[in-house]
């Protein structure tokens, strides 16, 4: 097996007295689509926050492209090629959809003085392309706060795609999006993986979506990894079924 592009080793995180994560190991290999599932409160979002460096971890190390990034700041992760979406959508509600896209531009090769000029033509072009793809180009001049929940999710996906990252962390990115579009996004994700070698880690509640798309699935339960395997294996795993159905 090749080396993981993003790896968390023995990650622990406690909030007050609650142990949200306990010695979780997770590895994401280049070009794969990894699903992360688990009941509510099992630590999925905490793990996402830890991997994207939004919160500090109590214990454990995180590696991205072979580098130790345990103490990196989120913006450094973004510039190294990691993009994420949030469970509670984070778009800039008072700004227009287009401006939201321009803010999420690529930082590749940007020098300090570059930011002292208006957004470049290429940035606009890429923004429009992505807006077209996600079917929200007609909303470009609306304030993002006026969008519906599903449209905001699409916008956030489009924003995440702006800098052309290597790794996407998608936190329930499909909830609230209409089923026809979910199918299209599914195709687009597969296409990006096949042709561009992009890597995805996604939290989803929609098991159908996960089993259609993912190569591997990791199940979190009470802050620990309960099971790991192909979607097929996971759906037949006794412990997983119990965790979901049992108390």
């Amino acid at each position, binding site marked *: 097996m090749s080396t993981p592009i993003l790896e968390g080793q023995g990650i622990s995180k406690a909030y007050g007295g609650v142990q949200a994560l306990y010695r979780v190991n997770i590895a994401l290999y280049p070009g794969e689509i990894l699903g992360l599932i688990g009941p509510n409160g099992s630590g999925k*979002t905490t793990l996402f*926050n830890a991997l994207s460096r*939004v919160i500090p971890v109590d214990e454990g190390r995180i590696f991205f492209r072979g580098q130790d990034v345990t103490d990196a700041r989120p913006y450094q992760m973004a510039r190294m090629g990691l993009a994420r979406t949030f469970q*509670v959508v*984070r778009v800039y509600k008072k700004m227009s959809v287009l401006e939201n896209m321009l803010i999420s531009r690529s930082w590749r090769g940007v020098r300090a003085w570059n930011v002292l000029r208006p957004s470049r033509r290429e940035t606009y072009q890429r923004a429009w392309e992505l807006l077209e793809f996600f079917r929200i180009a007609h909303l470009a001049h609306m304030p993002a706060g006026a969008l519906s929940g599903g449209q905001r999710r699409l916008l956030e996906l489009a924003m995440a795609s702006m800098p052309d990252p290597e790794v996407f962390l998608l*936190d329930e990115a499909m909830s609230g999006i209409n089923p026809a579009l979910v199918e299209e996004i599914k195709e687009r994700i597969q296409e990006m993986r096949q042709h561009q070698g992009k890597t995805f880690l996604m939290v989803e509640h929609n098991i159908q979506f996960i089993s259609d798309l993912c190569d591997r699935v990791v199940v979190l339960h009470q802050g620990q990894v309960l099971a790991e395997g192909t979607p097929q294996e996971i759906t037949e795993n006794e412990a997983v079924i119990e965790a979901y159905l049992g108390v």
Partner: protein
Amino acid sequence: MPFLQALLNGILVGGFYGFMVLGFSIIWGVMGIINLAHGEYVMMGAYFAWAMFRAFGIDPFVSALLVFPIMFVVGYVLQWLIINRVVERPHLISLLLNFGISISIANIYKLIYKADYRSVTVAYAGSFQLAGFTFPTVKTIIFFAALLIMVGLHLFLHRTRVGKSIRAAAQNKEAARIVGIDVHRVYAITAGICIGLTAVAGAMIAPIQPIFPFMGPIFTVRAFAITALGGLGRIPGALLGGLLLGIVETLLTIYVPGAGAKVGTAVSFIILVLVLITRPQGLLKGLRPVEGGA
């Protein structure tokens, strides 16, 4: 034993600080609103005690009881009419609004009472000796009154129906709404209680503190420092933070020559910045992150 005596003085002042900060810290914890006018409510309480003392010779500790219902109404109405409108908007807005309220209150008092320093001198202003220590009488009474009120407030929050709904609204606004709690009414009651208590604190220190319209900001800065030390909305945390601040302030006043009475703002400011830089979540990790995390 000058050091132990200073420590004692610090503890007495600190107990008061722990009580003084409660209104500020509960409002922040429950509604996420930073009450920049906190010090002004202290000032209003102090003026009330002064006016009562001057006009009718009423003891400040009696005034402290009288001022609570009055300021409860003031707090309730302010929250109901004004602050509830911005409670769900970004911090920027509620900060600006409360800044405006704080300046307006201070200047209304300046118009009414002029900028002169006032004081209340009670008959029992001296001190007494106990176990080799000197106890300033007024500060000792304040200390124990503060502890008593804190216990009472704790019981209120945990044992009564209203108290429980306040805590419910603090923990999860949406859930509170679902189980039928009128969140905005709870907020108004919370503000009434908090501002009432703050004014009670103000009335109690009237005998030991010069009273003037612009005495407020230093109490607001102190409140910030104490919340940074002790966390939000928890009574033991507030007491601990208050004690720490009181002790540090008193010791510095005694051991640093020339520090004098101006030491309050500077000490609070330095504590605030130091704590937040070294431990952004507060000394006891009790600070709520200012923005809703994902």
